[in-house]
């Protein structure tokens, strides 16, 4: 569930039995987290403004709020230091950058539900927010669709805001003016999730393939498909190439047959082949969740040569931690950690110090089994081998635990495996 602050202010607040007791006057968030959670509600009743803790709210959406408790304590609201009132403290306020230069004003505030709790995620500074406040967003969108006019949407990630420096007069950012354009892929994803297809195209056009690929990886599967099928096939192919092969394969598997036949031939041969291989495995097996991006080296190399090879390959953060050792026929012979390589004498053959009984899973092994192996051996990634023991891919820990953890949690984990360069 997502909505904007302006869509809830002034909405009716009902008690448990559905009787109106007042109107939504403000929302309270506790600052400190990356995205501050909503902790309370200020209700304007006939006589006064009362404060309600969020636990008392049973239902909250753009039609209003309903309370869970039969009685309400009429506490006078007193703002604490780590709390912000969204309407009173933030709405319409001046935003200044880290140097104190005026940037723009807050047009609206974007709230998203993360793990069942409402959080403040972004500051709407675009024209769409202004139109919404003027009550003409809907009509304008209709006109814009027909006349092919743009609906400029701009958001500032709450992460870029420095709430400590925020005062009655202005909201200060942590970044200089120029640093603003970059949105985190996860946030770009949640924004794209929201948009009508036509508006999405505009956003997608504004970012390069890599950023969009990162964003798509963070989206819900249904949106991924919608977004990709809306794109022109050539661009879709380019974006798929930028995605990691396992995610790309999952996405392609979900595409309609027509779209798949159109996009696949346009991909670079190498990437297409990897994806095609991955597509052959059922989704809930090791083969289905593995990636074919990994580092494998012949067993004859020395430590120094292996490090040299790593430099050439420049593997992603996701895959650099383990170096797999294979023979000429690509059978998995051993595994080296990055640490092993670095502390070994440079001219020592890797065969001598590699771990030669590596844990591995079969391509057809179930997803749960993979997760168990990863957990039991405390691995960052587990190699996947085919029936003959040949190394065909790896499953990284984030993909492995996907089955065990709800997807919301994954986003919250430290971004150790982030595909975004810091």
């Amino acid at each position, binding site marked *: 569930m997502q909505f904007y602050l302006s869509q809830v202010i002034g909405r009716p607040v009902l008690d448990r039995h559905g009787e109106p007791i007042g109107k939504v006057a403000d929302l309270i968030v506790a600052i400190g987290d990356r995205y501050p959670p909503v902790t309370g509600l200020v209700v304007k009743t006939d006589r006064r403004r009362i404060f309600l803790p969020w636990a008392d709210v049973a239902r909250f959406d753009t039609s209003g709020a309903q309370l869970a408790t039969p009685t309400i304590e009429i506490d006078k609201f007193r703002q604490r230091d780590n709390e912000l009132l969204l309407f009173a403290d933030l709405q319409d306020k001046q935003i200044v950058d880290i140097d104190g230069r*005026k940037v723009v004003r807050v047009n609206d505030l974007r709230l998203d539900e993360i793990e069942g709790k409402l959080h403040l995620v972004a500051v709407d500074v675009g024209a769409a927010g202004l139109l919404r406040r003027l009550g003409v967003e809907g009509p304008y969108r209709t006109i814009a669709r027909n006349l092919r006019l743009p609906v400029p949407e701009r958001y500032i990630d709450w992460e870029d805001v420095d709430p400590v420096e925020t005062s009655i007069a202005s909201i200060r950012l942590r970044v200089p003016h120029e640093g603003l354009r970059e949105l985190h892929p996860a946030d770009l994803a949640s924004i794209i999730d929201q948009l009508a297809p036509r508006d999405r195209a505009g956003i997608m056009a504004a970012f390069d393939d890599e950023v969009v690929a990162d964003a798509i990886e963070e989206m819900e599967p249904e949106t991924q498909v919608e977004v990709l099928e809306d794109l022109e096939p050539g661009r879709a192919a380019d974006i798929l190439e930028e995605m990691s092969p396992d995610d790309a394969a999952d996405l392609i598997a979900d595409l309609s047959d027509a779209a798949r036949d159109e996009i696949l031939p346009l991909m670079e041969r190498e990437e297409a082949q990897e994806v095609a291989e991955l597509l052959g495995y059922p989704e809930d097996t090791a083969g289905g969740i593995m990636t074919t991006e990994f580092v494998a080296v012949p067993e004859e190399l020395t430590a120094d040569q292996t490090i040299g090879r790593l430099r050439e390959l420049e593997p992603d953060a996701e895959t650099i931690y383990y170096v797999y050792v294979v023979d000429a026929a690509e059978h998995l012979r051993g595994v080296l950690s990055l640490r092993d390589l670095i502390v070994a004498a440079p001219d020592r053959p890797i065969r001598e110090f590699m771990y030669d009984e590596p844990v591995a899973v079969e391509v057809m092994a179930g997803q749960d089994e993979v997760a168990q192996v990863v957990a039991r051996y405390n691995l960052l990634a587990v190699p996947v081998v085919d029936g003959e023991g040949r190394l065909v891919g790896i499953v990284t820990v984030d993909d492995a635990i996907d089955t065990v953890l709800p997807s919301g949690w994954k986003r919250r984990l430290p971004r150790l495996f982030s595909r975004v360069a810091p």
Partner: protein
Amino acid sequence: MPQLPSATRRRRPAPPDTGLGQRLRALWESRSLRLRSRFRRRGLLAFLAVMGPGLIAGIAGNDAGGITTYSVLGADTGLRLLWLFPITMLILAVVQEMAARLGVITGQGLSDLIRDRYGVRWTALAMGVLLVANLANTVAEFAGAGAALEILGVPRWLTVPVVAVAIWALVLFADYRTVEKVFLSVMVVFLAYIASAILAGPDWGAVGHALVTPDLGGLDPTLLLLMVAVVGTTITPYMQFYLQSAVAEKGIDEEELALEQADAVVGSVWTNVIAVFIVVATATTLHAASVRVESAADAAAALGPVAGELSSLLFAVGLFGASVLAATIMPISTAYVICEAFGWESGVGHRFRDAPAFFGLYSFVLFAGALVVLIPGLDPIGLIVGSQNLQGLLLPIVLVFMLLLVNDRALLGRHVNGRWRNGLAIACIGLVVALDVVLLGSAALGWLAVRVG
């Protein structure tokens, strides 16, 4: 290894060793800064440093439309409505003082505060009306400047582009203080009206008497509307917007509040004193000779045969200066208002690339105004009346917002309006709003043809 106490571990690295010379120098600098700032806050010099926003807003109020209204008032009714000016002076001083106080204490423009406190819709309304009204007004100012120099034989197609480019370049390339000094020097031009009034040789006793004697005999609709027009042209929204934004940009701080209040009041007095001299000049000459005029330029031209060429020349020079200053202030106040509403960087003192929206808007309003004037066959009087009506529409909204804002303790703390100041403000604003409703009502009814222009 023994654990160090945490206080020791956290201690910051010692500052790099500075030589004795450097330290003495720093000490000397801090001492001299303190001395300088103390010096700055004393007496007339201190006032001269703060003075500016209020005076400029005041003299910009005597724009082409204002001079036209005053000239017509004098020519039509003589001295009998002169008592209006002490009243408009009081009202304007009350309103401008509030704007100055808001600007000094909050450090924000009026448009900033309206957006902060009253949201997008009211801001959009104020912004939209002010943009249209100021565009129309800018046209009127260029028309005034062009007409004034036509009396001196300079054609309009030459005056308007030269003036437009000159003031555009001044604001774009000079810093705030320089711009302010140039604006203030325009004050000298208004001495022309004083000279013009003296040349007319009025009966000063009668003038003094008229100033303090309300004369409502034979009040007919035309007279009433003329009175409304006088109040409307003396107190206009762009003056409050400009004053407060300029105070905020200049960064006048709380300690200098009294000086800035004085600046606002002096500006209000000055603009009304000049208005009185204009009325005296035309009343003594044109009214006595029963010459009717439609505009300020008309008045300047008509003065020639009645009061001599010098009088006519002085009147034209005054009109030119007033129009040029107002033609600069209108675009600036428009740019301030819109940038503040959207939260974009604004200010005369910035460089173009630091505040592109501000200078873009300024340039747009300025050149749009100048270009429209060059359209042959255009009637500036209609524009003046139209823009006055628009300003009149905006005025009650702006004044009510100001009244609410100056009573907001969260904003002004101990500087909120006290009881008697609030009473005065409410009385003044109530009167203006009532007269304003009359003006708008009559405009709506089409009762008033072009008389007010």
